[in-house]
């Protein structure tokens, strides 16, 4: 178990390093390969109508005239240990994890990201509880009543849930239930308002995922209920509810939890559509704004955060899987 953990942990770190190299390369190497000069690159960081002196100063300030390896080293050093920037006469220390300063707002990227993680996490975690409980419950009932009206209705609704895009269901829900829109209130400020404002986004997002999970659970349960060990459980004289929950559901749930972990990891990196639809100031909206503004430090920061969540989710899922399924050797 210890060896497994260390191995997986090192793998996760490697993955993050590779992500950072690739992301860095996309923004600082690929433009050069496409023929962009260092001067042109630096000009983006200065603003409108930059003077040659300003470009030169920016090049030096951001170290763009240095070799790429050194630049990447600086970037990594900033993330791990913090970094000093010189703005003309002033020097400013950017504490770790430092992703630099936004071109547009001139604010450090990391604190802004941290603010937004709260919003996205509130959205993702709240919705995930809803969809897991609802999806699995509906899936189990559907499987047990295969072919009945309930099953057909549930699976039709699930199909609708999977098919309808969130900007449709989201806008519809707003128009129907909350024309005034939602305003994010931090949990620590007012838990009731936090929940009240997030309820619609939760339900909308959960509808999409619950549909998926209901189908997954139904398929898994149907398969499991035909397994030999279910027959054994019945042959022992266990009551049907015990057979369904302790034996069938227990076996069905393991692969579903895997998907669940990955979905949460993905969402924590930004529920782009949901946040945009409800104007929630989360990571996803931040990413969209960053891309629209061509704000490289912001894009780098948001990419690394999203990658971190996905890697962490994968790691958690792997460990949980080993705990849940004793046949997985560690």
């Amino acid at each position, binding site marked *: 178990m210890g060896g497994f953990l260390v191995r997986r942990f090192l793998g996760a770190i490697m993955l993050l390093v590779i992500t950072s190299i690739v992301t860095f390369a996309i923004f600082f190497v690929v433009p050069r390969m496409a023929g962009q000069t260092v001067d042109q690159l630096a000009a983006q960081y200065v603003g409108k109508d930059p003077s040659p002196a300003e470009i030169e100063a920016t090049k030096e300030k951001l170290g763009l005239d240095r070799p790429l390896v050194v630049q990447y080293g600086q970037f990594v050093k900033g993330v791990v240990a913090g970094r000093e920037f010189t703005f003309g006469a002033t020097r400013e220390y950017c504490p770790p994890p430092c992703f630099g300063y936004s071109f547009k707002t001139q604010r450090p990227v990391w604190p802004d990201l941290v603010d937004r993680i709260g919003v996205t996490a509130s959205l993702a975690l709240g919705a995930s509880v809803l969809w897991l409980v609802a999806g699995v419950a509906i899936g189990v009932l559907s499987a047990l009543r295969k072919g009945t009206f309930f099953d057909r209705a549930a699976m039709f609704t699930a199909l609708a849930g999977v098919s309808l895009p969130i900007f449709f269901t989201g806008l519809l829900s707003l128009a129907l239930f909350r024309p005034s829109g939602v305003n994010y209130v931090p949990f620590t400020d007012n838990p009731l308002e936090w929940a009240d404002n997030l309820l619609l986004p939760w339900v909308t997002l959960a509808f999409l995922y619950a549909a998926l999970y209901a189908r997954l659970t139904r398929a898994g349960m149907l398969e499991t209920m*035909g*397994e*030999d*060990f279910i*027959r*054994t*459980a*019945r*042959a*022992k*004289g*266990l*009551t049907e509810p015990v057979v369904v929950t302790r*034996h069938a559901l*227990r*076996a069905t749930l*393991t692969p579903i939890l895997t998907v669940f972990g990955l979905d949460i990891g993905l969402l924590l990196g930004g529920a782009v559509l949901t946040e945009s639809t409800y104007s929630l100031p989360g990571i996803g909206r931040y990413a969209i704004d960053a891309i629209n503004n061509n704000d490289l430090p912001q894009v780098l920061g948001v990419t690394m955060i999203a990658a971190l969540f996905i890697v962490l989710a994968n790691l958690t899922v792997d460990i949980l899987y080993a705990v*849940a*399924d*004793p*046949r997985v050797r560690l």
Partner: protein
Amino acid sequence: MAFLEVDDLHVTFPTDDGMVRSVGGLTFALERGRTLGIVGESGSGKSVTSMAIMGLLKTGRPVITGAIRLDGLDLVTSTPDRVRRLRGKKMAMIFQDPLSAMHPFYTVGRQIVEAYQVHNDVSRAVARKHAVDMLGRIGIPRPDRRVDDYPHQFSGGMRQRAMIAMALSCDPDLLIADEPTTALDVTVQAQILDLIRDLQRDFDTAVIVITHDLGVVAELADDILVMYAGRAVEHASSEDLFEKAEHPYTWGLLGSVPRLDVEPTARLAQIPGTPPSMINLPTGCAFHPRCRYAVANEGLSETETPELENVGEGHQVACHLPPGVRRGIFADDIRPRLEGR
């Protein structure tokens, strides 16, 4: 009244292609301490019969008629919950593939504990001690440690032993073993058969062994019921079946058993053709298309279904061939080939 009585049992499954008659009029009885072997090819209805006794035929909504009386109680007309309370306690079952028959996520001990606790109101600690006792009793070394192992950590033979421990944990009066050795190594098969026989003696259990392997029933069974296409074609004591078989299908089964103690001079006498489709059963005797003696009956085999008839003490056969002809064929043709092969 026998301990277990199956009386004119019919099991029919509705399918998209029509009604499938899996078991069509099966009658037999079994006393405590006795072992009945049910032999037949795939689809002969032997497994369906055992599942019907256990009340485990749920999928496909079968129509079950006739009677299954366990200690006087008719299981066919009892409520599902009544039958459930008997499952595991009064009648238990072990299955073909012990790996897939055990839950992969729970320890062997926990699964035995569960089986014990359903029917016995005891604490987990007591149930666990019982599980360790059972594992030790069926020959698992260091049971106090192995009790916390998962099924995949057991070998195939150990797993089947653990299944048997689970089935016997509530001291059932009837044990049904459905192909108990089919998925096991040959070396382990004999051990498991020995174990079942020893335990039966200790627990005074009635045992039904379902198999396609005459070698298994030769080891275990007091009586043998040969099934073909959902019906019994021959029912005899073990000795009679091997010494005085009267049904052509039984002869085919006997001829298909490889022997190591005689020089292999000829090919195994296989039964030609395949088991019939249960949807489109042949008319008359279901075996007649594969029976090389049916022509002697001048069309009777094609039109009339033969009934089981007594031909000796506890020996019944369902065949249109006149008894004298059957005995003649067995003595002159079948037996020399079985022995001389």
